[in-house]
């Protein structure tokens, strides 16, 4: 079987989508391509289907919340960890999303494995994946209020009631009032 020569993913993506790549970060032999959120699907399709790249396996999608320090382009980050089984290498795509509208197109049509991974991020971080076929909560109960892995969600315990937050707390406790 003829295997095409491996291409440099950074140069290839920059050549094909010059406006999509916002930044390239190298840390401990890991390459991160910071991508414009609206371009993520086309870049993903390009990395998966181009000879010499073939990132055929989606290892992971993870999310990170930069609250409260805003020295990044957006509050939320979504990281796509891709793996090329043919060339045994990995790459990370990253998008930054703003706080008031954390929306990114889904990559379910590129890698079906993204289905539950995106559901988990929606559940935990409250990031909306546009076009996802089945965006329901997966780990938390369906009626859960809020998104627990955001940095401003409390770690646990009962919040202490003061006069300034009593209404807010009661709003989340429908049975305590009855």
């Amino acid at each position: 079987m003829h295997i095409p020569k491996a291409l440099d993913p950074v140069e290839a993506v920059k050549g094909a989508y010059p406006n999509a790549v916002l930044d390239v970060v190298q840390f401990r032999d890991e390459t991160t391509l910071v991508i414009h959120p609206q371009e993520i699907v086309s870049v993903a399709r390009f990395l998966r289907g181009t000879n010499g790249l073939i990132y055929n396996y989606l290892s992971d999608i993870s999310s990170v919340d930069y609250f409260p320090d805003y020295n990044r382009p957006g509050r939320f980050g979504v990281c796509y960890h891709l793996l090329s089984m043919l060339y045994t290498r990995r790459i990370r795509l990253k998008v930054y999303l703003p706080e008031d509208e954390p929306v990114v197109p889904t990559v379910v049509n590129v890698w079906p494995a993204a289905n539950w991974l995106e559901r988990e991020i929606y559940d935990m971080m409250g990031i909306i994946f546009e076009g996802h076929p089945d965006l329901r909560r997966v780990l938390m109960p369906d009626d859960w209020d809020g998104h627990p892995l955001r940095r401003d969600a409390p770690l646990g315990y009962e919040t202490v009631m003061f006069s300034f937050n009593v209404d807010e707390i009661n709003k989340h406790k429908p049975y305590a009032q009855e």
Partner: protein
Amino acid sequence: MVAPIVKVEPVAIPDSMKQWEGSLEQLRGLVSERAMTGETMLLNMGPHHPSTHGVLRLLLELDGEQIVTCLPDVGYLHTGIEKSIESKSYEKAVPLTDRMDYLAPMSNNMVFALAVEKLTGLDVPERAQVIRVICLELTRINSHLVWLGTHALDMGAMSVFLYCFREREYLLDMFEMLSGQRLMGSYIRPGGVWRDLPAEFMPALERFINYFPGKVDDYEKILTNNPLWIDRTQGIGVIEPDEGIALGVSGPSLRASGVNWDIRKSQPYSGYEKYDFNVPLGEHGDVYDRFYVRILELRESLKIIQQAMKNVPGGAFRSTNRKFVPPPRAELGRSMEAVIHHFKLWTEGYAAPDQEVFVAIESPRGEIGCYLHGTGGNKPRRAHFKTPSFMHISALGKIAEGHMIADLVGIIGSVDIVLGDSDR
């Protein structure tokens, strides 16, 4: 005396509670249209069904005994481990990782330790790497034994379960020698392992290595050529190679479909490139192949342990970088520096840069990945674990479609899921 009849007043359900009640309308789009008219039956399997290996709920749409749709529902074992790690220093987060995949705690320790080491640039001595390999392979055998026992039990072969748990007992005794704990030892730590191998460990390992191959032969005698076992497993739950890769299936379940992908071989960590072992591959990707690949993996793991135990180098069992690893107790009485390091590490911990890393290793179930993002301080901003069971359960619906409900039990067993691993 006759007890007085107490009349119970019906309790009014508050409106806010009524909206929680599920209705068929909520399932529109997830199940077929035939379920809406009642032509097919909706059946709830679990979350306390014994064959679901924990607390997995499956919503099945059945046409007679045939599965039309299978909707897995997880989260019953969600314990917020990722959230808890955000509030702990790196060293203190290690015991939490044990609790994810409770059948392979060392693999979880390992992936977290590797992520911390990569993030901070911490070194691991040679001796620790070899000890880690021995532990990881013992964990693999341990996990595969529980899998084999419960899988065979689901399919009606009860004796295998008892034999497997008998052999597992030896392994748990060895883990107790290492860490003082039978199940969740937190033995693998960032920078190496928690303590050196105790004197009684090597003889015990020697005994196990000599004793265990005969036992694998015994399991094979019961199952491999057993016509009942073959009838129930061959041709069931087939995963095509392309489909498996697309759905994120990994580990032995993917190798049973013939995909030659083992992270120990392709992206070696902890010195796996030094050992000579084969990667067993299946051909059909059915339940039987997944069973047989794991049986062969038991033997390959033994081979790795045999090579590793002959060449355990001397030296430190944990990094001597005192900014990350606390000094041994004996040093505290002699050295002021050691006291300062000890105090700093157990009160504050160590800092990691405001950067992100991703590490993936081959756990007994498949690819387990750890995404770790530092803050520049002593606690991580985010720790995310990509777990094989989560991916396998998400693929379950596709694999189970069109099968009989009795075969579903075999399929769940064969993809090897642990709900603690999936829900975290």
